[in-house]
């Protein structure tokens, strides 16, 4: 017996008290990566281009981190059973975030967006009432 006291606090031990997980975070950052790459390509101002590179790298790193949180904290074994491609998809998405971080090519950002959208679609299927289409449309409204 280890409980030390008659009255003691016990823990449900969730990573977050009813954790809030949302692929919108990764999607917004992926859109920022795309916009930064596009604005870089469209600009002739070397200072602006320098800033675009830096901001793109920051947002790509954030996209990676948001993906990791979803992968390691939100998705559970029963999700992988239903969507066996999940681990591979996250591996490819985080690799795409890394590629988008290194490269100024707009296509790298587009690849990242595509994979985040795929994850968002799966997430929506695991959370009744969650509308990933709205997330995607909101991000696209702000496309450069």
């Amino acid at each position: 017996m280890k409980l030390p006291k008659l009255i003691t606090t016990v823990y449900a031990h969730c990573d977050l008290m009813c954790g809030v997980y949302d692929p919108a975070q990764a999607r917004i950052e992926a859109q920022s990566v795309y916009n930064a790459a596009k604005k870089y390509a469209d600009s002739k101002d070397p200072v602006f281009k320098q800033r675009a590179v830096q901001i793109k790298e920051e947002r790509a790193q954030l996209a990676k981190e948001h993906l990791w949180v979803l992968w390691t904290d939100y998705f559970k074994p029963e999700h992988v059973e239903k969507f066996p491609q999940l681990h591979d998809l996250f591996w490819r998405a985080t690799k795409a975030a890394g590629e988008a971080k290194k490269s100024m090519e707009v296509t790298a950002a587009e690849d990242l967006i595509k994979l985040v959208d795929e994850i968002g679609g799966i997430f929506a299927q695991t959370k009744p009432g969650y509308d990933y289409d709205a997330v995607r449309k909101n991000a696209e409204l702000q496309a450069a």
Partner: protein
Amino acid sequence: MLPTLHHGQILLGRRWFRPSVGQIVVAWTDQPLIKRITKLDREQVWLEGDNVSASTDSRYFGALPRRQLEAVIIARITRGR
């Protein structure tokens, strides 16, 4: 353990009990953990949280020895928040 249990809720437990599937129990891990028994055999129990999508439980740390069960919840005194 949402929606069954809420943060700050006061519960009444009993230390001596016969474990059975469906019971909400306190188990000792690195801290007193409250989960529901979903499977058990003569030596081990499998614990899961009711908040399936956000619970860290036996799906991660595996089955626990029955001797780590500390108490069964027999009543809820307050609702919590």
